[in-house]
């Protein structure tokens, strides 16, 4: 068992009355590429701030490579690209990259960093004259200026157009292939789906899901099954449908001209369909579709929302 790259132990952080991070327990292992998902205000940026030691937790403990975040940063083990990370103005891109390399204990050569980040052609440009997407790539360059073991990225592709975004992820994959641990927060679920080995879902400062993208989809009820039941084929009790194995959610429309529409979400679609026939149903227009990570994400966060609501109502 290798030592963890990062660990949160019972970490909480409040701003005034708002609990941004609520009892977070989390361990990152070497070599993982981890996506951090969550709706706006879920605590993603706050968690990253705590991870990087930019803020102190109210409760609990955050460690990086077994020590304090600050010690890990000083040792040049962590590179980060923050949403709120500004850039120095009145200097050129190359000058800024050279600065990042000069202050890093295990720096790469500035020329190499410019190349890795795909910003060679704008190296001579003034930082204050860059577009949003170009600025993001300069921030990325600062995050990969040295031989980091962990790279933290907060919504790195915001402001990038599609082709630049693809180039960016190609650069990111090269970093991961060199054995670096990568943690990134994102709004784009297809990025998490195609790049991350592990997906974390935050909701109101709590970790509500942690697993591979396939795990998350399975947890949300990864497949959608829809069909029609016609009265002419015989009556089916709603209870019989609810009793189907592996069911995550069921939606049954009212009868219109003797036709009822059934929509089911299930972790095991095969079992549901087999169960349907076994129960003597005759599903018409049967469709089984897979749920994307995006829908899985919405399902999980909605469920968490509903649970919290019922807890609040109970109080």
């Amino acid at each position, binding site marked *: 068992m290798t030592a963890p790259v990062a660990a949160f132990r019972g970490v909480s952080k409040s701003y005034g009355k708002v609990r941004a991070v609520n009892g977070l327990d989390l361990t990152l292992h070497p070599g993982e590429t981890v996506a951090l998902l969550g709706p706006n205000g879920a605590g993603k940026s706050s968690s990253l701030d705590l991870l*990087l030691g*930019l803020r*102190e937790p109210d409760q609990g403990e955050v460690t990086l490579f077994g020590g304090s975040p600050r010690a890990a*940063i*000083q*040792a*040049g083990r*962590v*590179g*980060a690209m*923050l949403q*709120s*990370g*500004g*850039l*120095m*103005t*009145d*200097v050129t891109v190359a*000058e800024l990259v*050279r*600065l*990042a390399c*000069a*202050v*890093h*204990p295990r720096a790469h050569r500035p020329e190499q960093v410019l190349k890795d980040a795909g910003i060679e052609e704008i190296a001579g440009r003034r930082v204050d004259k860059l577009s949003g997407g170009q600025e993001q790539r300069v*921030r990325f360059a*600062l995050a990969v200026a040295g031989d980091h073991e962990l790279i933290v990225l907060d919504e790195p592709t915001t402001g990038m157009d599609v082709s630049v975004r693809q180039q960016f992820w190609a650069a990111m994959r090269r970093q991961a292939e060199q054995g670096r641990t990568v943690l990134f927060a994102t709004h784009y679920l297809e990025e998490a789906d195609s790049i991350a080995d592990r997906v974390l879902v935050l909701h109101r400062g709590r970790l509500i899901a942690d697993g591979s993208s396939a795990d998350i989809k399975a947890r949300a009820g990864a497949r959608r099954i829809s069909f029609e039941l016609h009265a002419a084929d015989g009556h089916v009790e709603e209870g019989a449908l609810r009793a189907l194995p592996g069911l995550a959610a069921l939606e049954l429309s009212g009868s219109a001209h003797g036709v009822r529409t059934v929509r089911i979400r299930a972790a095991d679609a095969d079992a549901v369909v087999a169960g349907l026939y076994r129960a003597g149903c005759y599903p018409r227009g049967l469709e089984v579709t897979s749920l994307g990570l995006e829908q899985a994400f919405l399902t999980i966060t909605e469920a968490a929302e509903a649970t919290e609501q019922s807890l609040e109502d109970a109080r």
Partner: protein
Amino acid sequence: MRTLVKLEILRTLRNKRYAFFTVLYPALLYFFFININHSMPDGLDAKTYFMVSMATFGAVGAVLTGSAQRISLERKSGWTRQLRLTALPGRAYATAKICASAVTTLPSILVLFALGAAEGVQLDAGQWLGLVLVLWAGSFVFAALGVALGYAAEPNAVQPIVMIIYMVLSVLGGTWYPITGGLKSIARFDPVYLYNRLAVFVHPGASFDTAAAAGLAGFLAVFVAAAAFLYRRDTQQA
């Protein structure tokens, strides 16, 4: 750290506003003041007096507008956060700002002295050198004030705050006219006045104003303490 200091100096010198406010503007004012009829008290020589007061005006302007506004903007933009994610020690940023300020005050002092010399101000070599040194050393007081203000206010508030402070201190500090009579009792508490007083040793029959130097040292201590406190508050918030 050296790279950061070098880059800070470079970018300040590159900035066009800097060149205008800290070199060109005081230089123009200098010609204006020495060509209108000032009744100079105590047998002061207008060309010498305004050479000093415009040099200090430019130097104070350089550090106040330069560091205060930049620090405030860079806190807002998140550059200071980005720097905290590097191996640089926390104090590196403020140290680099003060170093850059110190270097950027020199052009306004040297340009005004060159103009003064061209206009016929005559001092011996020791006096010229001493004058450059005391004015340069005195500018650190305002560099510290600039850092404190930069951490005290948001970018859109910091500009008017700096302008007001700069103007009030200048009016009471003898920048535009020598301070005489009752006004002196107020001016004693103005760091710009004390700063200008550092130069009195070049006037005939005057010696170095140690009281002014002590006063400035006091202001320096206060501004450094304020800057350190505000800096610490800022890192806890961001």
